[in-house]
């Protein structure tokens, strides 16, 4: 029995190191509990509770519909403007909250990081995943709106889980970079709200990407949220222009951000406990 006792070697690590995904898998229960904690705690001591998950995207949609839809007469791919905007705001809110929460996650869990060992990747990962509950709530409202407008999803809805995964990958990828940077440079905390605002307008949420002509429209996919947003509209609302090439570009970019973010995170990991 003692012969299979694991030997842990503690020594200084150098350079780029492996992601140790097997170890991450071993800690999946911790990932589950941290996610569960984030969900449980998020709306404690609020009056509106989980309604906040809906209020955020819904009222943004109302404002967008008024100013962009009614006043500025922004085109909406032949769809009613409110549902055009809301279908994009649902994944966007998941992305933006995931990005925001994960970039502050290491600093927010500093006491854990200073006192207990576990793969640090668990922390930003769980903060992104915990946003899924909010996503589901906002999504239910989206279904309600589709019924009201009499829009039925196309067969392309089967792609929705993959599009959701793409949203998660984008949010986590950027979140990993920012959370690791935030440990060392607290500037990140002040940059994030600004970044999210900027990114919102750089993504075709209030307007359609069909305003651009090819090849620019495909290149627009470099912003991974372009692929997500156009994908959601295509899968659910049946916009006629298939965003295939955009999604391919977005997926490649999002994966690159995630992988590079994970390696950067892992490299900085050893310093977290000392400087967080």
């Amino acid at each position, binding site marked *: 029995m003692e012969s299979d006792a694991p030997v842990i*070697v503690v*020594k200084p690590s150098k350079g780029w190191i492996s992601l140790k995904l097997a170890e991450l898998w071993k800690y999946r229960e911790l990932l589950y509990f*941290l996610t569960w904690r984030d969900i*449980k705690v998020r709306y404690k001591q609020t009056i509106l509770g989980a309604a906040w998950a809906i209020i955020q995207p819904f009222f943004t949609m109302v404002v967008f519909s008024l100013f962009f839809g009614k006043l500025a007469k922004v085109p909406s791919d032949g769809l009613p403007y409110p549902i055009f905007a809301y279908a994009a705001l649902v994944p966007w809110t998941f992305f933006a909250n995931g990005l925001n929460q994960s970039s502050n996650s290491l600093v927010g869990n500093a006491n854990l990081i200073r006192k207990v060992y576990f793969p640090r990747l668990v922390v930003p990962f769980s903060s992104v995943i915990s946003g899924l509950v909010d996503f589901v709530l906002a999504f239910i409202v989206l279904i309600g709106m589709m019924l009201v407008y009499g829009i039925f999803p196309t067969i392309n809805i089967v792609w929705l889980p993959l599009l959701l995964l793409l949203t998660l990958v984008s949010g986590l990828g950027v979140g990993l970079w920012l959370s690791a940077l935030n440990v060392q440079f607290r500037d990140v905390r002040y940059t994030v709200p600004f970044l999210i605002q900027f990114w919102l307008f750089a993504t075709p949420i209030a307007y359609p990407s069909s305003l651009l002509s090819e090849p620019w429209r495909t290149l627009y996919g470099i912003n991974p949220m372009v692929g997500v947003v156009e994908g959601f509209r295509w899968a659910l609302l049946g916009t006629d222009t298939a965003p295939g090439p955009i999604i391919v570009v977005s997926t490649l970019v999002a994966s690159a951000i995630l992988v590079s973010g994970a390696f950067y995170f892992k490299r900085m990991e050893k310093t977290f406990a000392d400087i967080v």
Partner: protein
Amino acid sequence: MSDIAINTDNLSKQYRLGGRLHKFRTLRDTLTDFFTLPFRRTKSLLRGKPDGAANMNQTIWALREVSFEVKRGEVVGIIGPNGAGKTTLLKILSRITEPTEGFAEIHGRVGSLLEVGTGFHPELTGRENIYLNGAILGMKKAEIEQKFDEIVDFAEIEKFIDTPVKHYSSGMYVRLAFSVAAHLEPEILIIDEVLAVGDAAFQRKCLGKMRDDVKEGRTVLFVSHNLAAIDKLCQKAIWIDKGRINMSGSTVEVISAYEKTTTDRKSGYPPGVLFEAPINEKQRCSLRRIEVVGTNDQLLQTLHTGDTLAFRIHYHCSEKISSAAFTLDFSTPMGIRVLRLSSSPLGGVYLDLPKGEGMVDCIFEWFPLAAGIYKLGVGIAIPHREWLLEVRDLSDITVSEKDVYSSGFSPQCPRTLIAAQHSWQHVHLKS
């Protein structure tokens, strides 16, 4: 397969002072450094300092070339003053932070407790926190479920298990937190000063629980300032000072050597004098000087168990005080009172103190404290009415060993705190 549980080789950890003092850097600092550093380096190189870089980032070795071995099933205590590097060592062994140099090999599943209640969330209930905290400490969900009742029992909080812990008293909070931790069952347990929490009864319970763990053959590495706990639990001790191992070996030897230095450092008075202070006119009564004198009224350089001696208290009163009493307290460095004497009411002697300076002797025919270190406290009071003066930790006194029973052995701490003149006799039973 070996019987070694932990083996460290030249473990060292360097901290950058700047990085640690200013908890975090802003991007601006880094950018300014980036642009000014080359200039500053050249400047210091021009001034003839060989390595300009060394001055830029002040560093400190929190741990330096620490090598030791812990065998399977051994319980090792780590002692040392604050900032000696004890916690850094534990953090490296629990993989929270990396060493700068050297390496360690750990054979077996490690559980580390650098703090109780890490990750407790105030908004969650006791039940929820048990699961969360258990997972954070590395327990599997099934394992927590299986031990759940035991944990709740041990913490004595059945009634409040579904109350958010923010409504707990601090005692309940700590009990719950410790209880989760105590049910962690790793092969190697690393503990930092967690027994310093909770009330006395609960501390005893924790010590008991730890003793059970030790009996089960668990390897334990234990940092504490509570020397009594270390003495009770550990066979071996390591004394760390300024990042290096100062001494390691049997607990009794290491603790007594450690205690000696901590007291030597404290007193700045000549031998035989325990305390000295100028007159304080503002107080009704103040202490001027306390000394230990022998039978010939000479200051005693050292005092031993069984000596005939007197504690002489020089005092000053700014007014006449009648029916006053003096008290003397002796307690262990851990704060356990060993002996308290008072001229009245216990001694039955009421003293009328004159205005000005005076002197009182407390005479021992046979000094009863066993060899060791004690804290001396002195008080002046009007019995049943008021304390004119009470100093708990006035001075440390060292009682030296003496073979008072002529047996070749001397009564000493922590085996016994007091000694008494006595004899043994074998009484035969009539059958």
